[in-house]
C-alpha cells in the first residue's frame, strides 16, 4: 500500500515536520511499509467488538475538588523558555 509523495507532504504538514528533499523518499518508503504491515489488521473479525481505549476495564474518571492549589511560579517555569518578554512567551508574529 504505497503512499504518494503528496500524502507524505500533507502528513508532514499536519504534523509540522520539515522534511528535506532527500528525506522524502526515505519516509515514503518506510511509511508505506509500515502501513502495508499494519494492514494485516483487516484479517481480524471485529464487527461486534468495542474499541478498547483503556487497558483496565471498568474504571472511571476520578473527580478532584475545585480548589486552587497552584501559586505563581512564572520565573521558575520560564527558565526554560527560548524567548520571553514581559512574562509573555514570544513567537513570530501571527496574523489572524
Amino acid at each position: 500500500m504505497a503512499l504518494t509523495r503528496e500524502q507524505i507532504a500533507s502528513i508532514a504538514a499536519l504534523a509540522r515536520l520539515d522534511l528535506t528533499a532527500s528525506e522524502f523518499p526515505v519516509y515514503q518508503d518506510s511509511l508505506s511499509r509500515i502501513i502495508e504491515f499494519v494492514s494485516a489488521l483487516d484479517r481480524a473479525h471485529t464487527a461486534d467488538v468495542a474499541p478498547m481505549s483503556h487497558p483496565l476495564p471498568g474504571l472511571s474518571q476520578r473527580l478532584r475538588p475545585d480548589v486552587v492549589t497552584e501559586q505563581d511560579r512564572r520565573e521558575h517555569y520560564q527558565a526554560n523558555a527560548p524567548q520571553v518578554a514581559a512574562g509573555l512567551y514570544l513567537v513570530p508574529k501571527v496574523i489572524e
Partner: protein
Amino acid sequence: MSDWHTSTLTQLAAGLRARKFSSAELVRAYLQRIDASQAALNAFISVTREQALSDAAVADRALAAGAAGALTGVPIAHKDIFCTQGVRTTCGSRMLDNFVSPYDATVVAKLKGAGAVMLGKTNMDEFAMGSSSETSFYGPVRNPWNPQLVPGGSSGGSAAAVAARLVPAATATDTGGSIRQPAALCGITGLKPTYGRVSRFGMIAFASSLDQGGVLTATAADAALVLREMAGFDANDSTSVDTPVPDYVAALEQPLAGLKVGLLKEFFDKGLDAHNERRIREALKVYEGLGAKLSEVSLPNLPLSVPVYYVVAPAECSSNLARYDGVRFGYRCEKPRDLTDLYRRSRGEGFGAEVKRRIMTGTYVLSAGYYDAYYLKAQRVRQLINEDFRRAFGSVDVLMGPTTPTPAFAIGAKTSDPITMYLNDIYTIGANLAGLPAVSIPCGFVQQLPVGLQIVGPHFSEARLLSAAHAFQRVTDWHTRVPPGYA
C-alpha cells in the same frame, strides 16, 4: 577495593543499615565504575556527581540516626525519561537537550523519599521509541556482554548500567517491551508492572495507554524492593489505580508448587531462534521441577499484536509529541521566518528519524478517512487480544515463554527496515496492549549472550510474578553472571 558491585541491591540496603559501609563509599565506588565504562558503554547521558555525594552524606546521617527508609543510601539511576527537578532531562532527544526539569516525576520523588541516591540519568532510544537504544541523540548504548551488540531498547542505558553493575537498580519504562527486552538481552531482571500500578506523572509520555514505569535489577528480590517503593496511587495521574501496594518483599517466599503455567502456542513459533528456544525449555523444566504444572494455551489474536501496537502507539505519540514546538521549552530553530517555519524546523531538526517516522505514521492513522480503518480497527483488535488473555488466565495462573526471538544483535544490523526492528517486540507487546504485568529473568546463554524468560500474569499479580521469578533464582545462578570485564 570493594566488591559491592557484585552484591545485590537487597544486600547493599541491608549492609548500609548494618553500617558495614557508608552510602558515600558506595556512591564513590559506583561513580568510578560509571566513569570507567562510559566510553565503552555510553549508558549514561548525565551523571549527577555533586548531588549524589551530597545526598549520600544526608543518607549516611539518617542511617547513623537509625532513621533509615527501605532504600536509604542505595545508589540508583533513572532512565532519562523521568523528569528530575533541577537536572537535565533529555529523553534521549535533541529536542530536550537543554531542558532542565522544573519538577520531579512521582516515581523519582517516591524513590527519593525512600532514601535512594540518584547517580545519573541513563541513555535510551529517543522518546522511548526503539528496541535497541540506537536512536538516541547521544549515540548508541552498547551491550556490556559484547560492545558490538545492542543492549536492547528503549531502556538500554538502564539495562547496560545494571548488567555492568554500574548501579544496583535503574528505573525504566516499558511501552512495547522496553524494560523486558533489554533485560533479556543484558542478562538481568526487568519488571513491567500492571498499567496504572506506577504513576506516569513526570514520565515523559510516548504512548499513554501503553506506557508503564518499572525497574531493572539483578534479581527478582531487588525488583520487589524497588517496586514496593515506586508503586502506588497518585492523584496527579488519572490513570493511576487506587489499590493498596502489597509488600512484594514479604510475598517473595510464596511457595510455587502447583503454579499453573500456560505456554503460549503463538510464542513458540518459527520466529523463535532454535537456541533461544532450547534455553527456554530448559528453564521450563526447572519450573516443573519446582512443582509448576505446564499446559499449552492459545491466544489466537496475539499474532496481530505488533500491527495493533504500530497503529496505537504512533497515534498516541503523534499527539503526545505535539507539545514540542519550540515555544515554551526545548529546542528552537535559528531565526524562524514565521510561525509555521518555527514549528516545522524546530520539530524537523529537534526530532530524530524514528521519532518522525512514528509521528507521521500516527498522524496518518488518525487522519480523516483513515481513522476507522486503522485506529478504531486496531483498538477493536486490541479488545480481542485482551479477551484472549482473560480467557487464558481463566485456566492458568501465569504465562511463560521467551522474551525475545533472538539474543542481542549487532549495532546497525536492523536499522534499515523498521519492520525488522519492530518484530523484536513480538513477544512483549501483548502485555502492554492488555495492561498486564510481566517480568523477564535471565535463564541461560546462547553463544555467550544472555537469554531471557518472560512471565506474564493477570492484572495486579506482581507479587506472584516476583515470587515465581525468585523461586527460579533460588535454584539457578544465571542472575549472578556479570559480563566479562565488569566482574
